[in-house]
């Protein structure tokens, strides 16, 4: 059998909360240390311990980090799902089974089977107390032996997981070695899969999108963080809290130049973020589905009273509680027109850790320049899965705080007013309480009708003019928003995608004979390039991870002249999108509606 090198996926099925996560990460990291781009998808349940988890590690010559819906190697180490795991495997899948379990032989038909007496082997672990946890390392050793991961890479990986704790590393290595030795002695290689050192990694790093976004916030100058725990957004706020004190200098007295507040709920979190933005600090909150819904009213105030803040919406499967630990892109229409009345919220859509960092950092400038809550629209796949990435680049631009009505500005401007469009761009000069001290500056910010001087007004004309100015302001944002990325193909078909769909798109494009053009949206409101891209193609297919084709709808609304050519292909099962779905959608439209 010809070996197939560095081109297969391993799926590891375990119950969650049993410590298997460490083992899984160790395998991934060992591969990275071999110079391979090893991407991992963690399919975990909304539960703390005991329910099924799958961890899937993919290595491919192209270094794709897309989820591979099929796996070539399976470790069905969860008795609750073993039947299903075997049934879902294609013929010839390599199965590393626990020979201590009674599973009908018929279940393994057509599969390539290695039996490992995990429970027995576990008894060899010297530290009896830690045995239940260390036991998971045995399969690491088996995998290492079978597929050629050198044990020193396993050790290296363990050292990144337990930095500075050599004793712990040794304990883990002992367990892994038991597996390794068993495999070497008792298993006969019958499959083609193997790893070999390569040079895919270079100076790439491994991190998840939420942590990258958290760092972006710190580099963007966030100083007030108000949040409420929710999966998959918690890790973003927690990462800010973890890093900010270490990255940002304290004041001369050693006191913090930031504050992180765990609010009592999302209504309060967004209230705090907006209160801070109003008072002049760079502020943020992070949340997901149910939380973004709860923020509706206050976001409307932020919009109408023109208060900067940044809201991270890490999308999960909706509606309602949905699947808290699965991914989707289904808050698009909601955030675009969030809150009652005529509103339009700008949002940024990162597709990788670097964009998470950059867009997050940039969001603070945008929020302050345009005096509006800016939504950072990511999702669970990007946010919580770890990604190989080039190192995060130092931001190119300095922090810009937009138009501030300092005392000098007020004195200089003819007849300044808080909501006066002095420059014709719809953007007024905002005050910072305690900083702007000019006698004309004081006013009461409010969500009710107000005139250019922030005075209460019920005048229809004033109201219309104000809404018109707001529309102008938001239209004008596109010059500063991340532009779409266009890549022309050799077909009359143009495909539009955004966010994490990008990974699957790029992999699919690579494999297509006739290549459609591809436009990746990175923000809303839309740039003119979006219109010209649509105009340039006879057919447009929008591929996205929600049921209704929400972005396609948004595009139809904005480009009615071109709406007729916009079709959409949607996946909404909650798993990270696969290249196969994209390829199929392009080649043989399935789930594609007019």
């Amino acid at each position, binding site marked *: 059998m010809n070996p197939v090198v560095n081109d297969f996926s391993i799926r590891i099925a375990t119950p969650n909360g049993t410590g298997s996560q460490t083992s899984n990460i160790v395998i991934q990291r060992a591969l990275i240390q071999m110079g391979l781009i090893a991407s991992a998808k963690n399919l975990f349940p909304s539960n703390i311990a005991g329910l099924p988890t799958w961890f899937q590690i993919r290595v491919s010559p192209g270094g794709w980090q897309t989820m591979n819906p099929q796996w070539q190697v399976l470790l069905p180490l969860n008795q609750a799902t073993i039947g299903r795991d075997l049934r879902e495997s294609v013929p010839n899948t390599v199965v590393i089974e626990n020979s201590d379990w009674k599973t009908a032989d018929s279940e393994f038909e057509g599969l390539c089977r290695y039996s490992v007496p995990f429970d027995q082997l576990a008894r060899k672990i010297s530290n009896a107390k830690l045995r239940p946890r260390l036991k998971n390392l045995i399969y690491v050793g088996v995998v290492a032996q079978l597929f050629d991961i050198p044990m020193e890479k396993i050790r290296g990986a363990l050292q990144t997981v337990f930095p500075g704790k050599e004793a712990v590393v040794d304990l883990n290595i002992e367990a892994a070695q038991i597996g390794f030795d068993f495999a070497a002695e008792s298993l006969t290689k019958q499959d083609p899969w193997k790893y070999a050192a390569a040079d895919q990694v270079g100076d790439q790093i491994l991190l998840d999108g939420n942590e990258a976004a958290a760092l972006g916030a710190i580099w963007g100058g966030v*100083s007030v963080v108000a949040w409420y725990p929710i999966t998959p957004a918690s890790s973003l706020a927690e990462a800010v809290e973890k890093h900010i004190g270490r990255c940002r200098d304290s004041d001369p007295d050693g006191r913090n130049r930031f504050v992180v507040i765990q609010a009592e709920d999302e209504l309060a979190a967004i209230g705090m973020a907006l209160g801070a933005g109003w008072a002049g600090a760079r502020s943020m909150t992070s949340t997901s589905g149910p939380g973004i819904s709860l923020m509706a009213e206050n976001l409307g105030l932020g919009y109408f009273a023109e208060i900067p803040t940044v809201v991270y919406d890490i999308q999960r499967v909706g509606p309602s509680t949905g699947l808290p630990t699965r991914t989707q892109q289904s808050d698009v229409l909601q955030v675009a027109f969030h809150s009652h009345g005529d509103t339009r919220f700008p949002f940024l859509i990162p597709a990788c850790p670097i964009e998470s960092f950059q867009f997050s950092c940039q969001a603070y400038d945008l929020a302050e320049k345009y005096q509006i809550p800016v939504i950072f629209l990511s999702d669970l796949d990007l946010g919580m899965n770890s990604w190989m990435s080039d190192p995060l680049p130092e931001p190119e631009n300095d922090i810009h705080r937009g138009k501030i009505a300092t005392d000098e500005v007020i004195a200089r401007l003819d007849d300044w007013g808080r909501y006066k469009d002095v420059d014709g761009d719809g953007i007024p000069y905002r005050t910072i309480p305690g900083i702007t001290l000019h006698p004309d500056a004081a006013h009461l910010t409010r969500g009710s009708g107000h005139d250019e001087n922030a005075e209460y007004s019920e005048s229809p004309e004033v109201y219309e003019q104000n809404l018109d100015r707001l529309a102008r302001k938001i239209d004008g944002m596109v010059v500063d928003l991340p532009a779409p990325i266009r890549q022309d193909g050799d077909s009359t078909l143009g495909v539009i995608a955004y966010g994490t769909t990008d990974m699957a798109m790029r992999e699919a494009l690579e494999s297509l004979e006739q290549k459609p053009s591809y436009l990746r949206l990175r923000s809303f409101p839309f740039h003119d390039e979006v219109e010209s891209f649509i105009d340039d193609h006879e057919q447009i297919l929008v591929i996205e991870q929600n049921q209704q084709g929400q972005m396609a709808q948004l595009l139809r609304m904005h480009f009615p002249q071109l709406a007729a050519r916009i079709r959409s292909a949607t996946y909404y099962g909650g798993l990270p999108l696969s290249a196969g779905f994209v390829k199929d959608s392009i080649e043989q439209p399935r789930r594609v509606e007019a």
Partner: protein
Amino acid sequence: MSEEQKKPATNALGLAKSEYKGGPSTMCKGCGHDRISEAVIQASYDLDIDARNILKMSGIGCSSKTPAYFLGNAMGLNSTHGRMPSFSTGAHVANTTMSPIGVSGDGDSASIGMGQFVHIIRRNPRMVYIIENNGVYGLTKGQFSATADRRSPSKRGAFPREASIDLCGLALELGATFIARSFSGDKKQLVPLLKAALSFDGLAFLDVISPCVTFNNHEGSTKSYTHQKEMGVTFHDPHYVSPQEQIDIEYAEGELQEVTLHDGSKLLLRKLEHEFDPTDRNASFAALQQTRNKGEVLTGLIHIDMEAESLAANAKMTREPLATLMQGDLRPAVGVLDRINGGFKI
């Protein structure tokens, strides 16, 4: 008129009291809320406050409109219904050199805002939190609020079906650090309490009974001017002495309790009929219980805790305003990102 008479009196900042006013009130004539605005004006004037260092925060309701009618030189944020506490917390931490005065209503805080009311007390940011308590929703025309009590009929004669909330009792149970109740009709008590609140480093909560003349000042109402005059009781008269001032009032031995506030000012409490030490939380509980059992409405300083840490102190926050930190303060130094990237290297 002589030259002297013409010039209005001014405070240490050289400001006349009129300069502490806001826009003309749009409250109904006689509304208790207007009296509270006046008390805020008086206290600010007396304390020589630069209004530009005040943040006027509010929710939604007649009461929440009043920040437009005092301290016209201060900036304010009229937020959403029931959410003043969170907006205030955010504004406060953004710039701890400013003093927030939050104004809310009983509907705004005790109904829709209950969650935020409870949690801001737990968090204890430095601010003055005033509830202009009239037992009704004024702005939406007279529905019961959560402080309406079961014995108190609406204008149309209906009685509330639900137990009423004693905001001071609640605040005390939650560990509030400064709790006072007063009456919009009692400037002599309200003004010194406001001054003490403004000098306090922590959340200073004032529950001010403030009759709604349009919807809840009728016979039988327990939030009417008449009822408060009849059933209001207090255990001590408050007198505020600023750090610069001498204590020039003469009191008999033991008649006076003195509380020194964070800025060095003092709140002197002249004891009336009852013995009661508001720094003793158990005593505060007892005083509230005792008066409530008799159907009385206890006013005055109900509790003060000079030991508790405020939010900013607790969070080890810088004393600089976060609002004005610059690129150099905010963005990590060059090289830090390399270190971080290094940490993600496998």
